[in-house]
């Protein structure tokens, strides 16, 4: 068997945690317990986990507005996350960031980003830091099919090549930027090819196939660690929920989402593969399902019970290190 059981269980647990976390966010948002704009990543779990599962806390990821999955995959505490998304004082960012600006520097997660295309330039910097200090640490940025068209992302690709930065550019192509089709907004015939034209190894993978995505990430991460510079990956995936929670999704085709849930569910595909290959047993995964469900229940309970920030002390705190 090409993978350790422990590894596969960890992958499964992480993907499942993301799935249940997101589904619960949708429920809590609808119930009025989560304020603001929230972008759920259910459906895209395989990419987040494939990209992050082997990274250390000193490797840096830069995320997007759709960042919960990346956080969880990078090892952020889901209870702290839920508290943050609920705006509570004990959340990962003391309630000041919320879903769109969640971060955990201790885990090498330097931020969701509510500005499309904000992250890749920053990950160039994280990579530059790692490189200049002579480490083998790397940076990995997430972008979408939509954000691929933002100038900041495009120039970041060239910049990474020129400075030979240890940076893996992961593009999650879920077919949509809000309610605009990727086929419309990307003028090129292949995003992977366009990325490659900047002068870095670039590949396309089926982002619903955890194993294919994981292997592409391993190649890119390895190159980065070895000082061979940046790489890009386009992973095709699917967004199960709306652009934001509450999106009526009028732009989606009839039955498109149900079909996707039936036939393009990366977690189902993973389970079929690992049971088909007899790498894992259903019971093992069912046990994880139960544990994950408990964990998310706890996260929500603790989130709801957690205290709000106190304007008197917190509103003006942490604008600067010193002022």
């Amino acid at each position, binding site marked *: 068997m090409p993978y350790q059981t422990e590894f596969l269980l960890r992958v499964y647990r992480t993907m499942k945690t993301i799935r249940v976390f997101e589904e619960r966010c949708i429920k809590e948002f609808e119930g009025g317990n989560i304020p603001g704009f929230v972008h759920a990543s259910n459906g895209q779990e395989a990419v987040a986990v494939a990209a992050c599962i082997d990274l250390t806390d000193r490797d840096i990821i830069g995320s997007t507005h759709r960042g919960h999955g990346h956080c969880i995959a990078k090892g952020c505490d889901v209870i702290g996350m839920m508290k943050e998304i609920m705006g509570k004082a004990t959340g990962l960012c003391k309630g000041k960031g919320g879903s769109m600006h969640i971060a955990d520097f201790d885990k090498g997660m330097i931020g969701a980003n*509510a*500005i499309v295309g904000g992250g890749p330039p920053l990950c160039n910097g994280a990579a530059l830091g790692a490189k200049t200090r002579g480490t083998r640490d790397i940076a990995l940025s997430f972008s979408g099919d939509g954000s691929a068209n*933002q100038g900041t992302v495009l120039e970041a690709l060239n910049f990474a090549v020129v400075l030979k930065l240890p940076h893996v550019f992961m593009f999650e192509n879920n077919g949509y*930027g*809000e309610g605009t089709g990727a086929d419309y907004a*990307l003028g090129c015939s292949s995003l992977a090819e366009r990325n490659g034209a900047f002068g870095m190894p670039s590949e396309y993978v089926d982002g619903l196939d955890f194993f294919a995505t994981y292997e592409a990430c391993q190649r890119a991460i390895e190159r980065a660690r070895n000082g061979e510079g940046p790489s890009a990956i386009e992973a095709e995936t699917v967004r199960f929920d709306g652009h934001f929670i509450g999106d009526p999704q009028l732009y989606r*085709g009839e039955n498109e989402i149900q079909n996707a849930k039936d036939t393009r569910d990366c977690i189902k595909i993973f389970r079929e593969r690992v049971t088909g290959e007899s790498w894992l047993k259903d019971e093992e995964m069912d046990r994880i399902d139960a544990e994950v469900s408990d964990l998310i229940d706890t996260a929500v309970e603790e989130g709801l019970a957690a205290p709000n920030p106190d304007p008197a002390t917190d509103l*003006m705190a942490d*604008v600067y290190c010193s002022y």
Partner: protein
Amino acid sequence: MTNNTSSGSSSIKTYREAINEALRQEMRRDPTVIVMGEEVSGGAGCAGQDDAYGGVFGVTKGLMPEFGRERVIDTPISESAIIGAASGAANNGLRPVAELMFFDFIGVCFDQIFNQAAKFRYMFGGKARTPMVIRGTVGAGWRAGAQHSSMLHPVVTHTPGLKVVMPSNAYDAKGLMIQAIRDDDPVLFLEHKIMYDLKCEVPDDPYTIPFGEAAFPRQGNDVTIVAMSNMVTRAIEAADLLAKEGIHCDVIDPRTVSPLDEESILESVEVTGRLVVVDEAHERCSLAADISSIVAEKAFSSLRAPIRKVTAPHAPVPFSPVLEDAYVPSVDRIVSAVRDVLGG
């Protein structure tokens, strides 16, 4: 206040509907008016419905079905390209209305606004005309956090060559939008996202409201309150509370902050001798500071008390609802600023 209003019918409309109507009426009148931005229609290249959003706040809903994708253009997520395309098109025969879904996105296209469109006419010796409108949503209150809740009007007001419009109600929004579209200079039209559902009586026919002419939602001789955009509602609320105590405030809504109706503000302060400026932007180099400084220079001898600014603090907009509510200037803070300048 010389509003070029029509004498026809009117009805109760939301701020959103008023802007939508202004856009629709101008697009009907003038084939060179186009609308462009991300999701201004929505559904481009998708299997489902077209006009799926009509703008994420629904402001441009229905325009694409009426005017087609040639004039209601969904774009990639490329704000520099959007603004550049709008101003280049304005230089070549069109009157584009470009949308920045959130005005915070100015960060990725600021050059095209402050260094390009704003400067063309001057740099090119008066030969360029750049009749474009940039619509953007501003302000806190949506629990959208630091990167989707900024005001930023001080930044564009600072910039010569730009006009800056901040309507505080549906009536003004319609008249100012029509004016903005017909204006020959680049106009930033800042819509406070908390106001989209606010309603008032709005004429059905097109009408314009000239730039640089304030509105006076409340009149009084005791204290002048200048407020714009969402803060007008709060200033009015404060004035109404204070009126019950016999304190009568002159509430001035400049409606456009560049150009600014200095004269009305100065005239009011000459009567009241007291000024409170309310501004949802951060305090440093804000519009509150700007108006305060104009009065401290030009109506100094009328001033009988220190000028008070009521602004957001020098901090990003926090996500947590309790913090965000404390962040935005409140009716309470306006009331106590008024009491302050009255020496209370």
